[in-house]
């Protein structure tokens, strides 16, 4: 029989016992809906996390630190690495070497220090870090209040939202609604802060020993220096909602300075004391360097190259790899639970079709008597199963999508009440739509296997005798 005839006859037969077949189809729809709901929850969550990670702006960044800088993470490769004494110094030469690596767009020192900021004569102790101009494109500064630094030497600061809250004394108690960022920005933008910090000054020539004559140039000499207390006025130019340093954990800063400005301040760094004996004269030494890679896909290669140079690296890739593993498992679980309902529905198809065989026994006998082959009868039952599968699949996808929308809507109402911006936990990508309908079709065909074979094998003489 032709496909068009099969479809026509199958649909006609489905209409003949419309209640039973509708119920079976609804069963499939519910199965497909649960599958779609589960998988779109998985997809939605994955996309949400990916978005969050991308917003951290660190997908293309490799953090480099000297091997002796054990960060207490206890990572395997760090322990296996050379002993601290053998490791390489993370100095300006090394930074320039990294910048010359293929696929690297820039390598900038990570200037990071804890110091005191005074606002309206109240001191606030905080972690400060320096940002290069390229950080302007960091998604964390999307939707910030105010603006990014206009130049690399501007005497300005960008505050992270939580520090702005602290300055205004508006830190909300845990779990309470957070204040709106625009309200925070209004009284703060354009105001001045005073930063008090410890400046490292090169020891004067007279104080240095005679056999180190060249260590006087810019105060960065590792040989010997003095520490002077300084103050710097900074204007608040921007307040960012998101945290650009989410991957740094407890080391993350809440106040940001332009990179060149920070460098020119020669703030005393924690590494300075340690490196004092090793640094070559005239070379700044960094506690860590951020290396920006041109394309997130090249992070791995750059990381490997830097490791070969003798440094410890960390990138979000490591974190996202394990996250991807977690999502694969989550996906499998959600898929299995989603399929469970579809399995039950497929038993419904078998049941419906077996019933249909009993009911239409005589009809099958007639069709065979007037020339239908086993194959024709088989295909007809297959077509009926398949039609129920496709119909159920389409309705199910729509149903699953609707369920997702409702739940997403509900969660976002809750989030709104908590002053958290709305999110999409639900994503029904096109592949899921297509996959679900095809899957429902295949499952129903498999369910049709037994009934179709049974119908095809009916003995026409007996089938015709049946009333």
């Amino acid at each position, binding site marked *: 029989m*032709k496909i068009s005839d099969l479809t026509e*006859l199958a649909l006609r037969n489905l209409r003949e016992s419309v209640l039973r077949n509708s119920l079976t189809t609804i069963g499939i729809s519910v199965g497909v809906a649960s599958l779609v709901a589960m998988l779109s929850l998985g997809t939605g969550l994955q996309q949400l996390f990916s978005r969050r990670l991308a917003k951290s702006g660190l997908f293309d960044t490799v953090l480099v630190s000297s091997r002796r800088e054990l960060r207490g993470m206890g990572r395997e490769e760090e322990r296996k690495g050379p002993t601290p004494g053998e490791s390489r110094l993370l100095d300006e030469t090394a930074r320039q070497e990294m910048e010359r690596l293929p696929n690297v767009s820039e390598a900038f020192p990570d200037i990071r220090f804890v110091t005191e900021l005074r606002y309206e004569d109240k001191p606030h102790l905080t972690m400060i870090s320096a940002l290069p101009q390229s950080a302007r494109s960091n998604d964390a500064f999307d939707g910030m209040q105010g603006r990014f630094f206009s130049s690399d030497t501007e005497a300005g600061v960008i505050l992270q939202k939580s520090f702005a809250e602290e300055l205004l004394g508006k830190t909300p108690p845990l779990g309470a609604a957070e204040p709106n960022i625009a309200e925070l920005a209004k009284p703060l933008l354009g105001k001045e802060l005073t930063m008090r910090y410890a400046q490292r000054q090169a020891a004067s020539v007279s104080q240095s020993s005679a056999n180190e004559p060249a260590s006087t140039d810019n105060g960065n000499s590792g040989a010997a220096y003095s520490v002077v207390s300084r103050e710097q006025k900074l204007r608040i130019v921007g307040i960012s909602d998101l945290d650009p340093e989410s991957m740094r954990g407890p080391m993350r800063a809440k106040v940001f300075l332009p990179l060149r400005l920070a460098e020119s301040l020669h703030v005393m760094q924690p590494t300075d004391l340690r490196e004092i004996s090793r640094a070559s004269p005239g070379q700044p030494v960094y506690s860590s360097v951020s290396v920006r890679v041109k394309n997130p896909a090249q992070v791995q290669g750059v990381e490997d190259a830097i490791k070969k140079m003798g440094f410890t690296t960390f990138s979000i890739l490591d974190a996202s790899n394990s996250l991807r593993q977690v999502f694969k498992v989550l996906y499998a679980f959600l898929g299995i639970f989603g399929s469970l309902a579809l399995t039950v529905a497929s038993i419904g198809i078998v049941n419906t079709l077996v019933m249909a065989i009993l009911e239409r026994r005589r009809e099958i*006998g*007639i069709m*065979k*008597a*007037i020339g239908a082959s*086993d*194959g024709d009868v088989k295909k007809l039952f297959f077509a009926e199963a398949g039609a129920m599968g496709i119909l159920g699949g389409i309705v199910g996808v729509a149903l699953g999508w609707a369920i997702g929308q409702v739940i997403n809507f509900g969660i976002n109402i809750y989030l709104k009440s908590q002053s958290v911006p709305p999110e999409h936990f639900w994503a029904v990508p096109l592949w899921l739509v297509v996959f679900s309908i095809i899957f429902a079709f295949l499952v129903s065909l498999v369910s049709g296997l037994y009934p179709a074979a049974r119908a095809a094998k009916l*003995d026409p003489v007996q089938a015709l005798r049946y009333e």
Partner: protein
Amino acid sequence: MTTAPAVYAARGTIEIRSENLCRHYRMGETLIRAVDGVSLEVPAGEFVALLGSSGSGKSSVLNLIAGLDRPTSGSVIVQDRDLAKLSREELAKYRLHVVGMVFQSFNLIPSMTLAENVELPLRFAEVDRSQRQNLSREALERVGLRARMNHRPSELSGGEQQRAALARALINRPHLLLADEPTGNLDSHTGTEIMEMVREFNRELGMTVVMVTHERALAERYAQRMIFLADGKLIDDRQNNDRPNSPAAVDVRAHGGQS
């Protein structure tokens, strides 16, 4: 276009030949010999009645000729096809193209209109829709049901249903019309009407007709030959020369077998 068979077996060639045909089956402990060594030959174009009481095996013989059932032993050969040796697929093709069947209980599919019922075999034969509709309209016209083609069987009288079944049996232009008690559910008037049609198909279209009946009078009136069965065995086989308008008078070939 006509509903006449495209190809005729030449009159006088053997259409159906069975040799020592047996169909036995078990029912619990007992072996039932529904057909037990029937040998017969039916020439093309002949109108044969299979007579016997119920359980005599006449329907079983018909089912074997129709390819609905397979012999336990012996052979049944239709137009040089040994039905016992055909695959299930080939048997279906044989039923589709060579055989037209009508039954006592009409066996129309209740959910389909007359037109759909009549064109159903054409679907199995993968005939195009437009051609299918033409053919089914023509066939219904032939049995006088053109006006009722969009009715369902339940809306029709028994006689009309049987006429529709005849139209369906004709649609693939088979050589062989097999009728299993075609008037069994009809009153004598409509029964006669149906039998007249069967005779018309036999004479004008040259179809070989094998009709199962237990009504001897019906057989005597329409059949050229009467075969009597009892307990699965052939007990009598005789020409019926004293029927009205004996076929000897009508030479189908001379009329070209057209409709």
